[in-house]
Structure formats: C-alpha cells, structure tokens
C-alpha cells in the first residue's frame, strides 16, 4: 500500500477536513508543509503507524493514548463533561487575562473599571460576559462531571486517587468562582461575599480565624478585595492548572475511561494495548476531531449566551446598605438555606459530612461491580444515597435562588416581592 495516499476506505475514521489539510500540505503548498513538519516532527500522517507517531511525538497531543475504545468517544458514557470542564478552564484563563488588562483591585478603582469594561472597552462587555457565564458553567459542569463519574462507578480501584484529585478540583473551582465573585465590587458581590464568608465563620474554633485570614480583616474591605484578587488570578488558577494536568495524566495511567468489563473478551481485557479494529479508533484523527467538535459546540453556546445576557452588575458596593435579601453565590445558596434553619447544622455539620463523604467514598466502596455502567443494579444502595444527597442540595439551592425574598421570607418565583426597588 502506498504510504502517502489516503487509504482504508472501509473505516469511517477518515475526516474530510483533515484529509484536505493533508493533501494541501503535500501538494502545491510546500512552504506550509515544511512548517507543519517542523511542528509535528513528521509528514501529515496517512498511515496507522504515522498516526501513532503524531500523537506520541507532540507535547500537547501525547496526553492522549494513541488509540481509544470507540465507546469512549460516543456521547452517553461521559457526555464529554470532563473535556467541557477543561475547555471552560482554558476559556476562563484567556478571557480572564483580557479582563486583567483593565481591572484594578482597589475599592476606589474596581467598580469604575468594570463600568469601563461594560461601556467603552472594545469587546469588554463580551469578555466579561464570557468570563462570568463560563465560570458559572464551569461550576455546573464540574458538579455534573462528578455525578457522571459517580453514577458510572468510575471512582473504583484503580481510580480512587483520581477521584480525590477531582474532589480537590471541585473545591478549587468553587474557590475560583467565589473569589471572582467579589471583584466587580458592586452591591451583589459585596453582600454575597459577606454572606459566604459568614458561613465559613460558623466552623467551630477555627471559623472566625479562617474568616479573618480570608478577608484580611473582620469585614469585607480593601484588603479582602486585594486578597481575593491575588487568589483569583494567581494562586488558585495555577494550583488548578497543575491539578488538572495530574488529573488527566492519571486518567490515562489508570486505563482510560471506565468501561463495563463484560463487554470485553478476557483475552482482550488483558491485552488492551492491541484491541480489535471494530472497538478501537485511532486518536488521530477521530478523537481529535471529536474534541474539536465539542469545543466548537461549547464555544458557540457560550458566545450565544454571552451575546444575549449581560453579566449582572449592581450599584457600587456600599457597606452601609445591605441588600435585602443578601444572597451568597448560587452554588452556596443550598448551604445558606440550611444555615437559615440552623447555623450549626447548615454551616458546620453538613459541609463537613459532605466533604468527608466525598473523600471517603472511593476507599469505602471498593467492590469492582458496576464499573462503567450507568446506575448499575449492583450499586443500587449507594446510588440511592448519592441521589438523595444530590436532591437535597438541588432543592435547597432552588429554594434559595428562586424562592427567597426580603428578610429571607418564602415567595414563589411568580410572586412579586414587596418593596421592589424603584
């Protein structure tokens, strides 16, 4: 077979766009081809052997295995949620740097800079919207990703530690979003962070100290803004970036996606490195193309949302005029709702129990049953436990977001609050 020609017409792994690129590089565009070879350390990969090489020989691409099970790139096993989390992180990084060009972390300057971004900076409003909605989407995507991993039993050995890395990344994501929440320095952010850090202060013994450490004082002020800024733009994103690398690396080291074991013949399960062609696809070009497609879809959705809805901005922060109701960011409203029943239970017991549950889960539930299967029958009891916890969080959060009005009184979403601002 001619190594330089398109081949294998019977497999569906050929991507027209990629092949077009390959022909272009080879044909009249010699200069382009030379640049391509300098980057990818070889010609456009026409045959399977070259396709392995292009993955292995590239710093970015080599986080992939050279071949994956066809099941891994279909929709239902993962819904692409891990990849979406990663993309959102990258989008946050890029748009965040753009916002940093204009932002100033001081109580006198911050709000004005946000107004400037919204009103006069070229694409400032768009970038702020992308950053805001991307951040909120990232919190949601990380939680959904975690639920996916749980419901498919993908935290079981040998993936226990990667679950722990994931839990850390969940907390880092929440911290990223929470620290970013304060930066516009408007009424919404000021009071949300006041409420959020008050919840933190309910922790026994260390609570008030923790709050002091977080805020650099006893109340939200200039030092808190500076501290949240440093955490938001350097400390947490860099830690998260390192952990994300570790997380993804462990996915490959732990054998890729969790697959249902009965689907593989015993011999194949042992020698998964040379799987059969029907169940396996090459990373180049198929997986890369799927990843590109997910990125395009995500970016299109985020752009559309950002063009249609502006990131919220209220009046400049005023420590003398509390918002009524003052609400924490939405992902903490479940906690705030529980705190409104009991500060100790909502502010201390529930968060500690939840964290303990998440950390202990992969080390307690070690039976190798139901791996890679959604809602496996063998795991019914633990699935019920998770679902109940999730429901409680979703219900309390929903009440907190939609049904709490002035003085934390209950209102249906369609009921008008008394004293709507003029």
């Amino acid at each position, binding site marked *: 077979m001619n190594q330089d020609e398109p081949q294998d017409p019977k497999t569906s792994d050929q991507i027209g766009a990629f092949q077009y690129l390959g022909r272009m590089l080879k044909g009249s565009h010699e200069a382009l081809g030379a640049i391509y070879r300098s980057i990818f350390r070889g010609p456009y990969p026409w045959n399977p052997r070259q396709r392995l090489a292009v993955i292995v020989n590239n710093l970015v691409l080599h986080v992939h295995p050279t071949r994956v099970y066809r099941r891994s790139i279909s929709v239902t096993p993962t819904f692409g949620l891990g990849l979406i989390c990663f993309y959102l992180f990258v989008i946050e990084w890029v748009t965040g740097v753009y916002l940093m060009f204009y932002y100033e972390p001081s109580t006198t300057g911050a709000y004005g800079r946000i107004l*400037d971004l919204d*009103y006069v900076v070229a694409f400032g409003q768009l970038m702020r919207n992308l950053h805001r909605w991307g951040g909120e989407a990232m919190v949601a995507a990380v939680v959904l990703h975690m639920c996916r991993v749980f419901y498919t039993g993908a935290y079981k050995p040998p993936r226990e530690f990667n679950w722990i890395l994931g839990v850390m990344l969940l907390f880092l994501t929440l911290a990223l979003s929470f620290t970013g929440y304060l930066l516009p320095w408007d009424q919404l952010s000021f009071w949300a962070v006041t409420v959020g850090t008050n919840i933190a202060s309910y922790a026994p013994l260390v609570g008030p100290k923790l709050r002091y450490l977080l805020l650099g004082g006893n109340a939200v002020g200039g030092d808190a803004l500076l501290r949240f800024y440093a955490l938001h733009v350097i400390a947490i994103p860099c830690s998260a970036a390192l952990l994300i690398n570790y997380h993804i690396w462990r996915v490959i080291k732990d054998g890729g996606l969790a697959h249902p074991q009965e689907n593989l013949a015993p011999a194949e399960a042992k020698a998964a490195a040379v799987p059969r062609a029907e169940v396996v696809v090459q990373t180049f070009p198929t997986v890369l*193309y799927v990843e590109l497609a997910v990125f*395009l879809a995500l970016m299109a959705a985020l752009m559309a949302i950002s063009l249609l809805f502006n990131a919220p901005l209220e*009046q400049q922060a005023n420590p003398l005029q509390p918002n009524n109701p003052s609400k924490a960011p939405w992902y903490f409203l479940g906690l705030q709702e529980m705190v409104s029943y009991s500060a100790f239970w909502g502010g201390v017991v529930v968060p500690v129990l939840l964290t303990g549950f998440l950390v202990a889960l992969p080390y307690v539930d070690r039976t190798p049953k139901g791996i890679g299967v959604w809602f496996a029958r063998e795991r019914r009891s633990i699935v019920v436990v998770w679902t109940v916890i999730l429901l409680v969080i979703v219900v309390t959060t929903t009440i907190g977001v939609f049904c709490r009005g002035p003085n934390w009184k209950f209102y249906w979403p369609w009921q008008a609050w008394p004293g709507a601002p003029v």
Partner: protein
Amino acid sequence: MEKWVAVTGIVLTVSFGWALRDNFDQEWAKYERTYYSLALVRPHTAVWAKSQAVEVKQVLPTQVSTVERCVTCHIAIDDPAFKDGREPLRQHSALLRSHPPEKFGCVICHGGVGRAVTTMEAHGQGEGLSDPLVKGEYIEAACYNCHGSEALPIQATSAVIRGRQLVNRSLCMGCHQIEGAGGQEGPDLTAVGSQRSWLWLYAHIARPESVVVGSTMPVFPFSRDQLKDIVIYLLTLRGGLEQSRPTIAPINSVESNSTGLSGVAAEAGREMTGPGLVTYDGREVFNGAGCTMCHSIGRRGGQVGPALTYIGRKRDAKNLAKLLRDPAEALPGGKMPQLNLTKQQIDALTTYLTTLR
C-alpha cells in the same frame, strides 16, 4: 459528525460577526456623526469638523475624581448654533460658562452614570443601577450642596428652606437623627443625600412600604410639591462628605451658612415659639407636634410607642410634665425623643392627656 461541526462552526462565526457589529455600531457614534455633518455645512466650522474623529470623548474634571463621558453624545453643549437643538444635540444654559465640565464634570449637578455611553445606562436606567438623572428642580439641591445657602440668590434655595421647614414641622426627627439630634427609631439621615437618589427618596416618603420592606414609617399626607421640597432638602444632607465638594470661591464673598444642627434647631424653635402660638389647645399640640406618629389614641395613631388611650389613669399631670420636658431623664433608655416643647405647650398637653381615662 462533520455536518454537526459545520453547523456549530456557522453559529460561532455568526456570533463573532454579531459581537463585531455590536462593537462598531454604537449609539453615541450616530449623534457625533450627525453633529459633525451639521458642522460641515456651516462655513466657519467646516474645516474644524473635517479634522474631528468620531470617538468617545471624556472629561477628567479637575475638581472631582471621576471620568465622565457625557460630552460624547452631548457634544453641542457649548455650541450656540444648537440653542434650540433637540437632546442630546443641544446647547447648555448659560450656567455652563461658570461651571465648565473640565472643572466640575456633569454628574455633580445632573446625576446619572458618567462613565456610560448609552442612553439607558448613562441616564441611570440600566438594570441594577440606580443613579437616575436628576430632573428639573431637583438640581437645586446640587447648587446648595456646593454653594451653601448664603451665597445663592434666595429663589434658588427656597425649596431647600421649605423642605427643611416641612421636615421640622412634621417632626421627622422624632424618629430620625440628623447630625446627632433626633430619635433612634428610624435610620440616621445625616448623610442621606449622598446615599439615596431623589427617586428613591420620593418613592419612599410617598409610600414607605413600597421601597423598604416592613417599614414602620407612617404615610404622611404631603402634597407633590411638599414631597419635592422635602426630597430636595434631604439631598442637601451629605454629612461628612463636605471634603469631597469642589473648592469654589463664594459667589457673593459671603461665608456660606452651615446646614448643621444650629440651623435646624433654630428653625424648630421659631416654629414652636412663634408669636402667634401663645395659648394652646392640648389636643392640637398632640396632633401638631407629631405625637401621633408613634402613639395612638383609640384607633388612630402609630404603633411605635405605647398607646395613650387611657394614659390619664396611669400618670398624673406632674409625672407627664416631667416626662415631656426631658424624656431621657424620666424614661432612661426609652426611645421617646426630646421634642423641645415650651412650658405652655407642655401644660396644654398634660391637661389634655390627663383627660384620657
């Protein structure tokens, strides 16, 4: 798969195109272009207009630390050719000459959001923002805030004075404090002018519950004009913010009078001891001095203080007189404010109150 990618690719491209259009199709550019095109046809401005770029124009007032971009749309404020122009292309009144935007900006008098360059946001009608443009006579408060009372012609401060009289007469300070004097029941009003907008104040005084949930403030039967005067007066209360005022030379080289406690108290004194009010009917004093704001007799009156329907059974005239003279001494820790009543007023009140049995 490839079809799917093509569709999302198209959506993405359209979105980027939309964003690009949003970025270049700006409301303010329309006004500027209109202005320059009109300037082009006038012989003495044609050359100048040709050299002007359509861009965001901003002022960094030397006396106020802000950035203001109002002149981006209101580009004709100093152009006599637009004396009768339609907003935003309209010449400012003669006051502009003594109040150059380069020195004071626009927001200090007109309110609004100086950084914004769209009508909605700049005029404070954006979502979540409430720095509404100051309309009509409410601007008077701004004159007063910088110049004080003595330096201004009397007609320019009449609303402030009327408002202050109304505030004193209605005994707002039975519940509210202004610069340390007054009751503790309601919020301190010392700096209310720098905290609330005229719209908020108007709506709140007209119908307290409509703005502040669970407000215990009574609804006063003010007319619209009275409400306006009170709001204008309240806007001049900017306690502690005097330092942020621009430095200006007094207009008539007369020291501006303080709006502080002495003025308010003097006003209250005049009200209470005026020559026409020597003899009193106790019931009139009770209703006129604002007692009904907090206390009820029968079904009428406020709920803040105890009901006085049967007060004559509980306290005798001597006891009541002592209480009215100095509530803080008679009821330590109580909320009852010092009303500064005269001896005659106290006598009349006690006589009336002892009849309530």
